[in-house]
């Protein structure tokens, strides 16, 4: 029983919670907050159950729940989890749960906030779990609406601008995805949206040139979400204006959907186009759009981060930089590269969540985030400074903490394939250290700013509660990354194999043609 429905429960229980919240009276603040917590708890518990019962060796989708939704169009309700998505599901459940607590400080229109947040969780879960392309698209778009309102109503001073910018950018990407989706759907006969089979169904029916076009259309949709240069400009705005918990979700979960989508759809459905030349006799698609662009993201994001005065903007740009490692790693098609990339997705999710939560802590107290406006916080808030230091070091990739493992795996994996890019990407670690340490020094060290010297600020218990599980994960995965790697590796290697096999096939065909 539970095997069949577990994913559906995980996806729709938050939505049920949202419905309950809309029925509560608007003044019952405590009731609304705890209903929010109660609605995210089952998904978290079920995700733990999922981890215990997930069979990593099986690369096929597991815990499948599947039935015909729109029979005449062969659209299915098809949820399933495999090694690519399992860690993302856990990350989503965990961050949603923690963010409920991080949202306790919200005062304005509480009811709407929590209801929309839960709707957002349904959208996120569904996106990671859907294996029907149409269903995936519906969930993907479903996330936009709550996000627009969450930024636009509960955000900072320029929230309206940031919200509409986020909305338009993401929609621009997704309509291109829609066109590609329809093209893919109509190619095989009978038409199909089944992501697990679509690749095999269309492989021989679409010329490689059109496949590359479709690949690029899908990529633009996902690149906007990652966000990859030059589609990244919505991100700093959205982060600066969004309330803390929404920034956490945005950076922790939503950005991963970009890279997840590339793995699931670009690689899974159009493997042959992934390593095909982008133009005649040109470099491979994955090399240009993932490896090279990813490396550029690493450098560009790091330099932008260095120039920021706003701490939140700094963290936002650091996300762009860190997501670059994911792109670089997944373009290498080596076991280390792709494993490192997906591990980096998880690690960035936990670390950047910590960073945004910590920014929120100081913003709630000082009501500004100007790096220059602090100084010597270590002597005012020692505990807070300690946790911040931990998170900053984790983000820098210090050995012993989780990001180190994933970044090293990415660099190792890509060294064999793109040594030039790897050298550049590796040297960016220095840049990361530079902006992180510089910010740390300006804000926390030195003489305390007299303005805040006697405020008696310190991080409170609720805030620590949201940070502690993430810190434990960061430490644990820094020491024993196999916890995650074991789960994802077989599925990722199979995906690697799927993509690289098309190249062997193509060269084989070419040599046969040459021989004749």
């Amino acid at each position: 029983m539970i095997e069949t429905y577990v994913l559906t429960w995980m996806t729709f229980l938050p939505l049920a919670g949202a419905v309950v919240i809309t029925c509560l009276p608007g003044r019952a603040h405590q009731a609304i907050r705890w209903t929010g917590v109660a609605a995210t708890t089952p998904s978290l518990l079920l995700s733990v159950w999922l981890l215990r019962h997930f069979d990593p060796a099986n690369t096929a989708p597991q815990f499948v729940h599947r039935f015909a939704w729109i029979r005449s169009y062969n659209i299915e309700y098809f949820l399933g989890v495999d090694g690519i998505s399992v860690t993302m599901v856990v990350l989503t459940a965990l961050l949603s749960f923690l963010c409920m607590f991080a949202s306790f400080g919200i005062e304005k229109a509480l009811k709407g906030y929590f209801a929309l947040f839960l709707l957002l969780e349904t959208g996120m879960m569904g996106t990671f779990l859907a294996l029907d392309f149409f269903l995936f698209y519906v969930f993907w778009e479903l996330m936009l609406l709550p996000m627009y309102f969450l930024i636009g109503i509960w955000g900072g001073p320029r929230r309206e601008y940031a919200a509409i910018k986020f909305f338009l950018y993401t929609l621009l990407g997704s309509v291109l995805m829609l066109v590609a989706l329809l093209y893919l759907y109509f190619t095989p006969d009978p038409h199909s949206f089944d992501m697990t089979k679509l690749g095999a169904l269309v492989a021989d029916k679409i010329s490689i040139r059109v496949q590359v076009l479709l690949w690029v259309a899908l990529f633009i949709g996902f690149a906007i979400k990652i966000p990859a240069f030059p589609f990244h400009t919505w991100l700093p705005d959205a982060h600066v204006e969004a309330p803390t918990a929404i920034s956490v979700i945005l950076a922790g979960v939503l950005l991963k959907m970009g890279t997840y989508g590339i793995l699931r759809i670009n690689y899974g459905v159009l493997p042959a186009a992934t390593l095909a030349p982008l133009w005649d006799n040109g470099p491979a698609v994955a090399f240009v759009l993932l490896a090279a662009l990813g490396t550029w993201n690493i450098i560009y994001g790091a330099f932008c981060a260095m120039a920021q005065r706003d701490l939140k903007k700094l963290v936002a740009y650091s996300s762009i930089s860190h997501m670059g490692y994911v792109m670089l790693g997944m373009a290498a098609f080596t076991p280390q590269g792709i494993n490192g990339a997906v591990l980096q997705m998880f690690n960035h999710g936990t670390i950047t969540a910590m960073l945004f939560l910590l920014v929120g802590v100081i913003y709630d107290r000082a009501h500004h985030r100007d790096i220059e406006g602090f100084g010597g916080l270590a002597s005012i808030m020692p505990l807070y400074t300690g946790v911040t230091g931990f998170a900053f070091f984790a983000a820098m990739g210090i050995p012993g903490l989780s990001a180190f493992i994933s970044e090293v795996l990415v660099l190792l994996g890509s060294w064999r394939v793109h040594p030039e890019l790897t050298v550049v990407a590796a040297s960016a670690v220095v840049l990361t250290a530079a902006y992180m340490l510089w910010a740390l020094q300006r804000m926390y060290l030195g003489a305390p700013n007299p303005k805040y010297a006697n405020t008696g600020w310190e991080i409170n218990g609720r805030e620590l509660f949201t940070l502690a599980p993430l810190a434990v994960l960061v430490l644990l995965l820094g020491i024993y990354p196999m916890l995650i790697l074991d789960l994802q590796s077989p599925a990722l290697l199979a995906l690697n194999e799927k993509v690289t096999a098309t190249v062997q096939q193509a060269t084989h065909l070419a040599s046969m043609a040459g021989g004749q």
Partner: protein
Amino acid sequence: MGTAASFRFFGPELALGAALLLVIFVDLATAGRGRRSEWPATIALGAAAATVVLSVGFPLFGWAGLGETLRPTWLFDRMLVLDQFAIFFKVLLGLSLLAVVTMSIASREIAESPNQGEYYTVLLGSTLGMFLMASAANLLMAYLALEFVSLSSYVLTGFLRHNRRSSEAALKYLIYGGVASGAMIYGMSWVYGLTGSMDYGQIAAALAKAPAENRLALFTGLVLVLAGFGYKVAVVPFHMWAPDVYTGAPLPITTFLAVASKAAGFAMLLRFFNFGVGTNGPSAAMSGLPLVQLMAAISALTMLVGNLAAISQTNVKRLLAYSSIAHAGYALMGVAVFAEQGVAAVLLYLAVYYVMNLGAFWVTLLVVNTTGREDLDAFRGLAWRGGAPVAVTLAIFLFSLAGLPPFAGFIGKLYVFAAGIKGQLYWLVVWGALNSVVSLYYYARIVKLMFLDQPGPQDGPVHFPNAEVGAVAVLSALTLYFGVRFEWLYQAAVAASRLLRG
């Protein structure tokens, strides 16, 4: 089928005609000087309900002896045709009438006018004309039906006699309409001259074996006919009347024009071009002539102009007018495909467009009634001054119009795009998709005003009547429902899309 026998299949139209006469009679009998009568509205409401029941009755219960496998039936010596396509539109138009009458009763502009009898007479007459448009299969009948609708629309637009904008709109509508129908009947005379018939079936047969030297002349005729139809559905470049008329007309009439008149225009367009001119791609006589490309270009332009112009509007009626122009462009994409799935997609599109656009206009009516203002600022902070449920429903309608899942508008767009992909109009589909991003901008602007902005000092609290909040809530629930469960609606559209071919 002869005239006498045809009346059995003419139930909805007869009901409308009878109600029309009844309104005139009752109005004469009851109206005193300056006294308002409730009777015309009541009769119109009853007639609308009866029309829907009678129209639905055919496919569901096989009334009038048509049996379950509703065969297309020619009526009145091949002037009209009764097929599932016509029935689909009759149901849609009947429902539009029902909604518009309900809105009229709720609207201050209309309900406070002493000329109740005239209003409902003309409204019923206009609907009767639209019913004829949906089933006309003869150029002459089509022209007469179109003129019937046009003339009554001019009157309805100018119904607020003492309002200068209303009169101006009626005059503009009249002049544009005159030019368009002149062009159309000129084009029809070309088609008649070249094919020797006004009957769509015979036109189709004649086109199939038309000599090649006539192609250019035929094309000219068709383009002129398209101008007339294009004016009715308000596609670029025949759209200029729409913004002024939509703004000047009383709101229920704006809704009527945006929903019903457009649907009737599409019925006519589809029947002529997808049956008369060619069922699977334009007829061989058109080979080498850019009919598909012309339609596609009009569709592309219509989307672009509608969406770009809507961005800078400050009057909500005008904004919705441009938005409805853009939507005609999306629907036209399905016409340009020249295939059954294109027709089905247009029908589905019109059905979901009916639900969401009606909802948007209805909420606008509520806001205009309460605040007395038509500018966008009337919506400022609506959610924070007691209008939260209504604001939520409007947000649903607007996001649906923008084409976001899980709302009905997404399904409409999906099927139109799917038809475009299948018809290999790839560039048009990409264009349409990009245009829906543009459209989100102005739809979201209203949502932003309602939710993201705080009410200013001049924006007092609002209170809406419960019954009407209920009505828009039902429409928004339908918008959501069709976004998730659209299979039966699509099946109905597919069944209706076979036009005359059974």
